C-alpha cells in the first residue's frame, strides 16, 4: 500500500515538473556589440536617443567619449534572431559640437516584420564636465557622476540618477525617477511618474501630476518648490524645523510632527494654508502648492552616509 502511494506521488511530482518545464522556452540571444570613441573638446554635448534601451552614462578620466552599444535580438530560432537583428539600426556620429547616438527599428521595404524580441543597451563613458541630453522611450536610464549639465526627457522609462552636480533638468511621463546625492539647480517635470530623491543640495523645483514624490534628507537644499496635482508628497528629514514653510493644499491633508509650530492661515475643509518661519535669519524655503493630494512631513533619523 505504502509503495503504491509512493508510486502515485512520484508520478504526480514528475508530471508536475514536466508541466512546469513545458512553460520554459530557451531563447537564442544574438548581440551585436558596437564600440566607438570620439575625442572630447570643451563645448561638445552628447545627445542620446534610446528606444527600448537600457542607457548607462558614467564618467572616466580620459578626454574621450566612449560608446559601447549592444543591439540584442532574442528568439527560440537562432536564424530568426540573426535575421531580425538587422532590423535594429543605430547611429553614432559627430555633427559640429554634438555627438549623436541613437537606436531605432527600421525594416527594408517588403522585408518580413521582426519576430524576435529586440532591445538595445548603451554604456557611455565621458568626461564629467561633458553636458548630456538623454531622450529615452521605453527602457531604463542610469546616469552618474556628471558635474555640468544633464537634461533627460523620458517616457515609460525608469531613471536613476546618482552623484550629479550642476544643472539637472528632468522630464518624465509614465516613468519613475530615483536620485541620490544630487547637488545643483534641479528642475523636474513629471506626469504619472513616481519620484524618490535622497541627499539633496542646491535648488529644486518640481512640477508633478498624478504620482508620488518622496524626498529624503534635503539638509543642503537652499530652495524647494513643489507644484503638484493629484499627487501625494512625503518629506523625510532629520531637521524639519530648520526650514521655512509655505504649504497650500486644495482638497488634501497636510500632516506634520506636533513639535513643528506651524501657523495655520486657512483652516477650511477644502483649502489649507500653513506657514512657518524658523527663528534664525537665513533659512531655506519650502513652498508646496498641491491639489487633490496629501502632504506628509516626517522626521527621519539621520543615517550615516554611504
Amino acid at each position, binding site marked *: 500500500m505504502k509503495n503504491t502511494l509512493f508510486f502515485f506521488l512520484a508520478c504526480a511530482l514528475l508530471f508536475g515538473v514536466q508541466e512546469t518545464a513545458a*512553460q520554459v522556452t*530557451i531563447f*537564442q*540571444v544574438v548581440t551585436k556589440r*558596437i564600440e566607438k570613441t570620439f575625442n572630447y573638446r570643451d563645448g561638445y554635448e552628447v545627445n542620446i536617443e534610446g528606444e527600448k534601451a537600457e542607457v548607462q552614462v558614467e564618467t572616466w578620466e580620459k578626454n574621450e567619449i566612449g560608446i559601447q552599444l549592444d543591439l540584442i535580438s*532574442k528568439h527560440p530560432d537562432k536564424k530568426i534572431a540573426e535575421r531580425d537583428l538587422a532590423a535594429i539600426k543605430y547611429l553614432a556620429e559627430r555633427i559640429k559640437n554634438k555627438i549623436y547616438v541613437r537606436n531605432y527599428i527600421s525594416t527594408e521595404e517588403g522585408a518580413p516584420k521582426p519576430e524576435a524580441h*529586440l532591445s538595445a543597451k548603451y554604456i557611455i563613458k565621458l568626461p564629467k564636465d561633458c553636458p548630456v541630453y538623454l531622450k529615452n522611450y*521605453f527602457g531604463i536610464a542610469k546616469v552618474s557622476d556628471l558635474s555640468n549639465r544633464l537634461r533627460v526627457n523620458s517616457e*515609460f522609462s525608469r531613471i536613476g540618477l546618482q552623484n550629479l552636480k550642476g544643472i539637472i533638468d528632468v522630464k518624465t511621463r509614465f516613468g519613475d525617477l530615483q536620485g541620490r546625492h544630487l547637488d545643483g539647480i534641479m528642475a523636474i517635470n513629471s506626469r504619472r511618474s513616481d519620484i524618490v530623491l535622497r541627499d539633496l543640495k542646491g535648488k529644486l523645483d518640481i512640477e508633478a501630476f498624478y504620482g508620488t514624490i518622496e524626498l529624503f534628507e534635503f539638509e543642503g537644499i537652499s530652495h524647494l518648490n513643489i507644484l503638484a496635482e493629484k499627487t501625494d508628497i512625503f518629506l523625510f528629514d532629520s531637521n524639519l524645523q530648520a526650514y521655512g514653510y509655505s504649504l497650500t493644499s486644495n482638497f488634501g491633508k497636510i500632516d506634520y510632527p506636533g513639535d513643528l509650530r506651524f501657523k495655520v492661515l486657512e483652516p477650511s475643509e477644502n483649502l489649507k494654508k500653513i506657514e512657518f518661519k524658523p527663528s534664525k535669519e537665513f533659512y531655506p524655503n519650502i513652498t508646496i502648492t498641491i491639489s487633490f493630494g496629501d502632504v506628509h512631513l516626517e522626521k527621519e533619523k539621520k543615517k550615516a552616509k554611504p
Partner: protein
Amino acid sequence: MEKNKETLKNAVGRLPQYLPEDAVWEGLEAILKQEDQLRRAIRELPAYAPSGVVWDSIQTELDRKPASRRLRMLSSWRIPAAAAALLLLFLGYRFFSADIPQTELVYSTETVDLSLFAYDWDQDEPAILDLLTFAKESLLAKNDPLFHSLLKELEELDEAKSEVKTMIDRYGIDGELVLKLSKIERERTSIIKEMAAFI
C-alpha cells in the same frame, strides 16, 4: 706602446669568464655556412662584358647639358613632398579609422517562461465600452465636471496603453512592458469604477 702592460694584463686576467652554450656556436656555424654558400653562388654567376656602343652611349648622356634650375628644384622637393604625402595618408587613415566602429557578434541563450506573457489585457474591453456608453448617456454624468475629468484621464491612459501595445508589437513582449501595462490597467480600472457610479 702600452705603458702599464702588466697591470692591464692582470686586470684582464681577473675579469670573469663565461663559456657560451653549444647552441650559440652551432648558430654561428650555421650563419657562416650560409654566407659561404652565398659567396660560392656569387662566384658561379655568369659574367658579361658590355660592348663599346654601351660605353659610348653613357658618355654621350654624361656630356649632355645639365637639367634646368627649375627641374633641379623640383627634384630636390620630391623627397619632402613624398614624405608629406605619406604623412597625410597616415593621418587620414588615423582620422577615418577612428570613425569606423568596432563591431562583434556574441551568442548566448536564456530561458523565458512565456506563459507569464499571455496577451490578456484586452479581454475586458467590450465590457468597458458598454459601461462607457451607458455612463455617457446618463444625465448625471453629462452635467458633472468630475465625470468629464475622469473621461479625460481615461483617454490619457488609453493612449498610454496603446503606446505600450505598439512597443510590444515592434520589439516583442518582455517583463518590463507587461509591468507598465499592468500599472496602466490598474489605473484604468480604478477610473472605470468611479465612472460606473454615474450610471
